[in-house]
């Protein structure tokens, strides 16, 4: 956020949010065409298996990564979303996380954007992988099947999965839902560290923030 050089006499400040004026909104009946809410995964329960191809055509099956004394971390991804740019371009949060994880976890990005939506497509994601220097695979889920199975709502939306295929953490990457500023706590990193130490994960679930996942219309 840009800062204004505040003159001495412009001293009073506060933060507020802004709201608006509208004509009457849609009725319940008019909203019925909208998709039903997705069933959210519960912490501690088994996550669904999936197989998706990455930007290089290689197929990745979740089950193949499980049972090997390491975690799996999923990041829902859209290369053109401002919140993804915050963590992949303005900062290197995900690449730093990848380095931190090392052999302790596999990190996979998943793009559930539908054809024609922002950040969709093999070429765009292949280019983003190069531009952002992403060292881990970006899986393409154009039909949004996997995204809906997991209840992914935002980019990013993070999931940490145990070697047994149980959900350990889901939610935000960090504790600052800003498009520009980083948080003080990286929830994913904390969950991985706490799990490795054998203790309880302090924050097992948080509200994810970011752009909406650009699913195909139902």
């Amino acid at each position: 956020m840009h800062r204004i050089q505040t003159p001495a006499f412009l001293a009073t400040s506060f933060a507020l949010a802004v709201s608006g004026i509208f004509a009457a909104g849609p009725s319940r009946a008019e909203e019925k065409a909208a998709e039903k809410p997705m069933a959210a995964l519960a912490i501690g329960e088994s996550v669904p298996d999936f197989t998706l191809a990455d930007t290089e055509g290689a197929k990745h099956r979740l089950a193949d990564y499980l049972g090997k004394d390491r975690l799996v971390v999923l990041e829902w991804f859209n290369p053109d979303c401002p919140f993804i740019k915050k963590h992949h371009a303005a900062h290197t949060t995900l690449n730093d996380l990848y380095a931190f994880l090392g052999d302790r976890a596999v990190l996979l990005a998943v793009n559930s954007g539908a054809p024609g939506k922002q950040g969709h497509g093999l070429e765009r994601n292949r280019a983003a992988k190069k531009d952002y220097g992403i060292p881990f695979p970006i899986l393409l889920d154009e039909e949004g099947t996997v995204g809906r199975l997991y209840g992914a709502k935002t980019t990013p939306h993070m999931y940490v999965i145990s070697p047994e295929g149980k959900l350990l953490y889901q939610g935000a990457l960090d504790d600052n839902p800003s498009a520009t500023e980083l948080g003080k706590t990286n929830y994913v990193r904390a969950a991985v560290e706490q799990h490795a130490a054998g203790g309880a994960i302090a924050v097992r679930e948080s509200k994810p923030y970011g752009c909406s996942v650009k699913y195909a219309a139902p």
Partner: protein
Amino acid sequence: MKKISTAAAIAASLVLLSGCEKGDSLVRVRLVSEHRALVPGGRTELGVNLRVPNGWHTYWNGRSDSGAPLRLRFEAPRGYEAGAPRWPAPKRLVSAGGILDHVYDGEVTVIVPVVAPQDAAPSDSATFVCVVEWVACRDICMAGTDSALLTLPIARGGPRGEPSADAKLFEEARRRIPALGGDSAELTSRWEANSLVLEGRESSGLVFYPASDCGELIDPIHDAISDTGRLTLRIRPSETGIGHVKGILEMRRSRGTASRFIELDIEPPEAGASG
């Protein structure tokens, strides 16, 4: 109190920082006043006015599945008291994937009451500044920061002067700004286990817009809007129990009659408060 020449210098510096001054920002930000002048010791209302192109929306400061609330920093001259901002109700937006957001589209205004100091001199002026950090989306999302300023003269006293050219923005905003506490004659509430039942007398529909710190609704897409005068909000208990039900309730009326907006803050059933 500084003279207007100081404000002019500030304005010049802000032009260098402000996207809205350059006119190339997606979200146009203006700081507006309901009246043409301030009065020593008197209260007037300023407004942070935003305009987005057709098809785009920004985000309410309440709960949404995606996006980010507008963040705004408001600065007033020393000695001026800026009150709590008053926000009109947002609009529901349900997207593919079961994503529910509460958004603003078109032209939006938040009202900020301001009281001038008693010793404000009629020969002076006062400059106010706002900085807005926004995320705007349609089928794509963008983010940015813009600022605006407003300089108002100090009148000698008595009336606050004629309404400004922007006075109608305030009238429009107030139509969707909630009244605090509601009216028990029009609205009743009761808990049935972990569900809050709201009933609006003579309402043709109810819509609930949850605040960011509202207890978690199990299914806000379906529960928080009704085409009748009855709304049942199922609340998911957290580790600490059921949270307050906080937010804005829209009570829709028959066609041709404006909705009424009420600010809700209903304690959980354990506290024994309902209705």
